[in-house]
């Protein structure tokens, strides 16, 4: 049995370019791993074997004719929030259980153009609303490191699939931590880019001013390869940024001697699990050993990020999800008696409890007489939160801290208590509110459960984040570890 699954995207790509393996062999290899392991993990909602094999054959042709790009022929998985033409795109919801997308998201078409093979669509919290993958209509995903625990969320399927090496890499989206928190809990590397860097076209909207797609992979080097494909201006996304882009792989090897790392006092307070603190401290010591300087900083308004988020995100979701009306696509109730009944029952039956909670919070916050007290107030605080980061980045190059206050929690542990679930994103949410890029990098274990180091950068500093993460990964091997039962 070959060991392709133990290899990174960069390594697989090199083998493909050298002709040491074909895309067909690789695609077969990962499809067979999905068949073997995913019944237990539930990380995929849809696997597209036939289409993947056709894409692999086309990639092999391109490789043989010298028309291949850096990622041609590698297979990856897409979070089921990205529309994929001709393939079911459910967003983890009963509402879209029968939705076969008539078009591709820009991210999906960019990967197609790059010759990347799609293995399937990964499980996720319903409409990306959740931090544990338990709100999915298709059932929870199990964390490959400990199947009694959650993989994190909302990109939990992508994280679990990469952690168990059912796919060498996957796409994810991050509205309040949905790439970084599951990446941390599953021991993989994830990057949430600057807001506006990756097109949101065809990425089913949750909270439009916060949503951002990004790569989830084994290494920072692989995230760079993926970001090279994903990033870029798209006229179909009204908030896409028109700007020149670097080669994200180019600066990976830069020295980090003299790097100034800011440590926000608020990210290391009493809310942080002590074992997690120890893991993060060890990683910071390693950075110091590599020549970086640790600087204590303050983000005084960061304590407000969860309250602010739970106004902004529900308000935007209540507006975005109003498009699900049982008329144009998606679930429709049986025998509606009138138009109101059609709307209310289609939505009441098609959405799960967490989605309904958030739509109602948002509807309330935006309703007549409450707008100023909630949405306007939240958008003002957002400015203050963002200004905290601006001030911090005048003195430091990157900010580091934990990605999550604890390791993966047990399935069911927080499912009945929305507030405790919301607080598991306490260290990730501010980054989305400010629109900054952030990463999670595997940094160790607590009781056999992976811990992620979060690295936050200034706007458009993805290259620096990837460089800083890559240097750490050259000194550590946490990112190379695979749970025993998937070897």
């Amino acid at each position, binding site marked *: 049995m070959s060991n392709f699954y133990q290899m990174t995207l960069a390594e697989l790509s090199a083998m493909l370019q050298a002709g040491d393996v074909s895309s067909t062999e690789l695609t077969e290899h990962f499809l067979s791993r999905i068949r073997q392991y995913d019944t237990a993990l539930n990380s995929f909602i849809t696997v597209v074997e036939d289409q993947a094999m056709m894409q692999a054959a086309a990639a092999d042709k391109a490789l043989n004719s010298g028309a291949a790009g850096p990622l041609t022929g590698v297979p990856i998985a897409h979070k089921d929030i990205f529309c994929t033409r001709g393939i079911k795109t459910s967003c983890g919801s009963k509402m879209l259980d029968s939705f076969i997308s008539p078009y591709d998201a820009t991210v999906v078409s960019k990967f197609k153009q790059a010759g990347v093979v799609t293995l399937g669509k990964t499980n996720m919290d319903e409409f990306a609303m959740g931090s544990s993958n338990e709100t999915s209509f298709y059932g929870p995903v199990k964390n490959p490191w400990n199947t009694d625990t959650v993989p994190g969320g909302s990109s939990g399927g992508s994280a679990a699939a990469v952690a168990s090496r059912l796919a060498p890499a996957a796409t994810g989206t991050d509205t309040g931590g949905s790439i970084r928190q599951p990446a941390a809990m599953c021991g993989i590397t994830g990057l949430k880019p600057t807001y506006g860097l990756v097109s949101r076209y065809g990425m089913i909207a949750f909270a439009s001013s916060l949503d951002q797609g990004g790569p989830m992979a084994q290494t920072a080097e692989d995230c760079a390869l993926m970001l090279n494909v994903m990033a870029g201006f798209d006229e179909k996304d009204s908030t896409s940024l028109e700007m020149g882009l670097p080669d994200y792989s180019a600066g990976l090897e830069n020295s980090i001697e003299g790097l100034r790392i800011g440590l926000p006092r608020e990210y290391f307070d009493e809310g942080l699990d002590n074992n997690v603190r120890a893991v993060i401290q060890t990683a910071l010591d390693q950075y110091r050993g590599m020549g970086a300087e640790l600087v204590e900083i303050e983000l005084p308004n960061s304590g407000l990020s969860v309250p602010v988020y739970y106004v902004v995100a529900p308000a935007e979701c*209540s507006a975005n999800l109003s498009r699900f009306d049982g008329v*144009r*696509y998606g679930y429709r109730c049986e025998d509606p008696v009138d138009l109101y009944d059609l709307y209310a029952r289609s939505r009441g039956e098609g959405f799960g409890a967490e989605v309904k909670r958030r739509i109602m919070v948002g509807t*309330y916050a935006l309703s007549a007489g409450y707008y100023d007290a909630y949405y306007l107030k939240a958008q003002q605080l957002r400015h*203050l939160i963002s200004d905290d980061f601006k001030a911090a980045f005048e003195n430091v190059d990157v900010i580091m801290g934990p990605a999550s206050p604890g390791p993966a929690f047990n399935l069911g542990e927080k499912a009945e208590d929305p507030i405790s679930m919301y607080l598991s994103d306490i260290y990730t949410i501010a980054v989305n509110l400010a*629109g900054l890029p952030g990463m999670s990098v595997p940094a160790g274990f607590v009781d056999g459960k992976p811990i992620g180091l979060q690295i936050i950068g200034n706007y458009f500093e993805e290259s620096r984040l990837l460089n800083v993460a890559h240097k750490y990964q050259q000194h550590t091997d946490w990112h190379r570890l695979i749970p025993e039962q998937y070897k």
Partner: protein
Amino acid sequence: MSLDTDDIKSIAKLARLKIDEADVPLYATNLSNILDLVEHMNTVNTEGVVPMSHPLEVVQRLREDTVTESDQRDEFQRVAPATRDGLYLVPRVIE
């Protein structure tokens, strides 16, 4: 901030969500707890702070007013629950 069961019913109606009668008390508890969490916003005075509309302060991009999309009605209606003759079907709205 505390919401009672009547509040939940009126919010659900505004949001066009049918909620089972039996679930209303739990939604009232959950939503009240969320609003309590949100209350923390009031610990900070934001008088005079400009509300943030885009993290990078960019303005809305406009495009030329020209047709860019082709007619894909048939394809889009293939995913619709009920259509006839190119029209979406809904319950009768005019008696």
